């Protein structure tokens, strides 16, 4: 007899989900944010279909304010594993001057993240999109199904979810409807890190600490990633040893001061941390049901 560990059981479940979708959907895609959860998803997808290549493209929603390291990591990964990459961006919004400094966070995330995502899904006719959402992240996510249906306008109806029993997923859908599939629903942040360490998954260097130019603003430590960063009068970047627990648009993502340069240091910090990973994201703040509102509008 061989006892499977919790990570082996989670891995087997995720692989099962990937294969079900590829067997039943016509045109799947993976939402690839290049972050740690996406990196684990990609690793699981490669395992699910080995020795065949990953049978669907990666879709990266680029806001134009992504960390440079993240884009470099993205391009390297795509090249190394022979993946097909689609980059979605909202050029109109950029032209209209929507940016993370002047635009409110609600409008900004709608224009730079939600809208280009929805448009890309519609344009390419993707009927299933893998996302890296985890149920431990946030209260609204805890109740979302692994196969989560969206109407033609990409809206989520939390009151009208299909029951999911055993490992049976109902992937039937009407024309125009699509499915968001969350293969790592049952993983926790600790599981993700443990798996990255165990499987030696390559992740964006931003998760590891190193001296970076930073400014302190609204209680957050922001990294001045390029010269578009608008400094307030009297503000000057200070070099600090910082790293990130979660990655978003660089002017909106808070870094933490840290000396963690090795994987186990990161996990140690995470375990001893007193704030949740979403604390570093400006987008989640506001009323407590805000994630649920965004999800209904089509935010991943």
């Amino acid at each position, binding site marked *: 007899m061989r006892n499977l560990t919790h990570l082996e059981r989670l*891995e087997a479940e995720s692989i099962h989900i990937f*294969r079900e979708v590829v067997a039943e959907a016509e045109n799947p895609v993976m939402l690839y944010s290049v972050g740690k959860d996406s990196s684990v998803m990609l690793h699981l997808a490669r395992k699910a279909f080995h020795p065949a290549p990953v049978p669907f493209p990666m879709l990266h929603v680029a806001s134009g304010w992504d960390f440079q390291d993240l884009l470099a990591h993205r391009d390297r990964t795509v090249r190394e594993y022979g993946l097909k990459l689609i980059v979605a961006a909202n050029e109109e919004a950029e032209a209209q001057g929507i940016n993370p400094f002047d635009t409110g966070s609600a409008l900004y995330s709608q224009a730079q993240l939600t809208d280009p995502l929805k448009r890309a899904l519609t344009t390419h006719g993707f009927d299933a999109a893998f996302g890296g959402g985890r149920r431990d992240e946030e209260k609204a996510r805890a109740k979302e199904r692994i196969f989560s249906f969206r109407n033609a306008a990409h809206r989520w109806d939390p009151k009208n979810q299909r029951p999911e029993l055993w490992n049976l997923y109902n992937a039937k859908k009407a024309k125009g409807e699509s499915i968001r599939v969350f293969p790592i629903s049952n993983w926790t942040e600790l599981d993700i890190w443990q798996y990255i360490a165990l499987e030696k998954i390559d992740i964006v260097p931003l998760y590891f600490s190193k001296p970076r130019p930073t400014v302190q603003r609204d209680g957050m430590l922001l990294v001045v990633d390029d010269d578009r960063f608008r400094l307030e009068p009297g503000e000057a970047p200070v070099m600090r040893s910082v790293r990130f627990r979660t990655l978003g648009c660089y002017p909106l993502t808070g870094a933490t001061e840290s000396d963690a340069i090795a994987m186990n240091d990161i996990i140690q910090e995470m*375990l001893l941390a007193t704030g949740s990973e979403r604390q570093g994201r400006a987008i989640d703040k506001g009323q407590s049901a805000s994630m649920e509102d965004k999800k209904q509008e089509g935010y991943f």
Partner: protein
Amino acid sequence: MDTPSSSFRTDALIAKDIDAYLDAHQHKSLLRFITCGSVDDGKSTLIGRLLYDSKMIFEDQLAALESDSIKHGTQGAEIDFALLVDGLAAEREQGITIDVAYRFFTTEKRKFIVADTPGHEQYTRNMVTGASTADLAVILVDARKGVLQQTRRHSYLVHLLGIRHVVLAVNKMDLVGYDQGVFDRIVADYRAFATSIGIAGFTALPISGFKGDNITAASANTPWYEGPSLIHHLETVELDTAAAQGAPFRMPVQWVNRPNLDFRGFAGQIASGTIRPGDAVRIVPSGKTSTVKTISTFDGDLDEAVAGQSVTITLADEVDCSRGDLIAAAGDPPQASDQFCATFVWMDEAALKPGRGYWLKIGTQTVTATVQPPKYEIDVNSLEHLAARTLTLNAIGVAEFATDRPIAFEPYEANRQLGGFILIDKFTNATVAAGMIAFSLRRADNVHWQPVAITREDHAGMKNQTPRVLWFTGLSGSGKSTIANEVEKQLFLMNRHTFLLDGDNVRHGLNRDLGFTETDRIENIRRVGEVAKLMADAGLIVLTAFISPFRAEREMVRKMLPEGEFIEIFVDTPLEVVEARDVKGLYKKAREGKLKNFTGIDSPYEPPEYPEIRVNTVDMTAAEAARYIIDRILPLK
């Protein structure tokens, strides 16, 4: 409140030797459990407590919780742990949990996934969903109230879903002064009931989710209780791993992996047993045999794989095997049948329609299934068997099922993965039921197809024509019979062999035992479909004129026939027009309520989405419509 030292995490080790901590945690097992209780049993509080004590709550979440506790809380100035797990805003306003939520926490020994499901009577659906993946159930009872009807209902559902480990948590012991007498009485009550429904054993604990008694450590308030704390029990209860791995090998094939001509692997998650290269296997239902060549994974070929793992198997021989097939131990394969008896839970607002075709998904197989009228419904409160003609939302019943082709399965009792199925409505795509197969009805084995010497091609050839079923559908009075008659006359003049089946006429004979309820309408169409199919087999061009209001039944008839032989003709005359004409005076009667279940008035008509031909009697005469149809179906040779 517990002191920090009794929490499950050893921060000292994390700080001192993270490598040792991680090494220990990589070898943890996983336990999935469900908590069941009625609205006020303190279920959410217990889960909130487990998360809090295992430090799964961060400071920012705690700050939000504290402000939420003041706004929405029911515990006065104290932290309301329940708010941690009541997720959706809509639920918060109602003050109850209305769906299944999954929570996670970790101790030294195990990772836990908790399915939190509501206790409300109307939410049987959610509890069944949460229970389907659980290894263990915690049944909460309020010490002040004892075993209630809801406790019995939850226990029955837990047992029905095959959960073998049951924990009876007598909660709110603080509110009865930690009285052993109260606890003992409740345990005795529960034992009597549990035994009566077949629950073999359970573990009972006196706890307080609110105060923290016997949650992580033995409580000083219950010196008379010598058993384990809840966490200790959850950490040490034995999983059914040995039984699952010792069972005969079965793996439903999810996907055939064929990256190049040299590799053909069958990908799936092992449902039971153990497999090694060289093992003899049988493909079910085809019965073909082969041996395992490799167990191929990303991490290299394996010497052995066990139940629960997702793998890719290659075989020594080129055998037919695709998604939906099952790879099984050659010497001990599962049964395959197209008829079986099952207990099932109805999960949809629209009631079961016996006789209608639903998608049935079991393992990786998706087939069309019809359900017989239930043998009985089970009253989840009294457990009595009630007579039933259908099942409605949250009802549980037993019925016979027939599938359009044999499926491989195991009785649910033997294997949840291979005996559990869902039903999907073909029209709405909703998951409408969850079922558990009890046993196979071997009737299918006894009725064999009679091979015939003269084939359907011979019949058609003799008549020098291609068989067709011209299926006219539309509202009453839309012109179906008139146009069908006209089409038949014209075909007759062209020396075609035809036959017209008319709704009203068939109801005088073949279907005179049927009324106009949804169920009877479905059976009406099924019989007409079968007759039309036999006539098409005989080489005839069959015309049918039936309202046939439901898409699912028209699709069912389409499926009975070879591809291309079923021509759906939608007589698309609008309701306003047919009602204004009201040739038979039926619409008037229906509007006055003298005629029940009348299509278009108090019974729905589902128009075809993609009919082969569409006509109406507003823009064209019946003769023009007939000509239009004939132009589209010729040459028929």
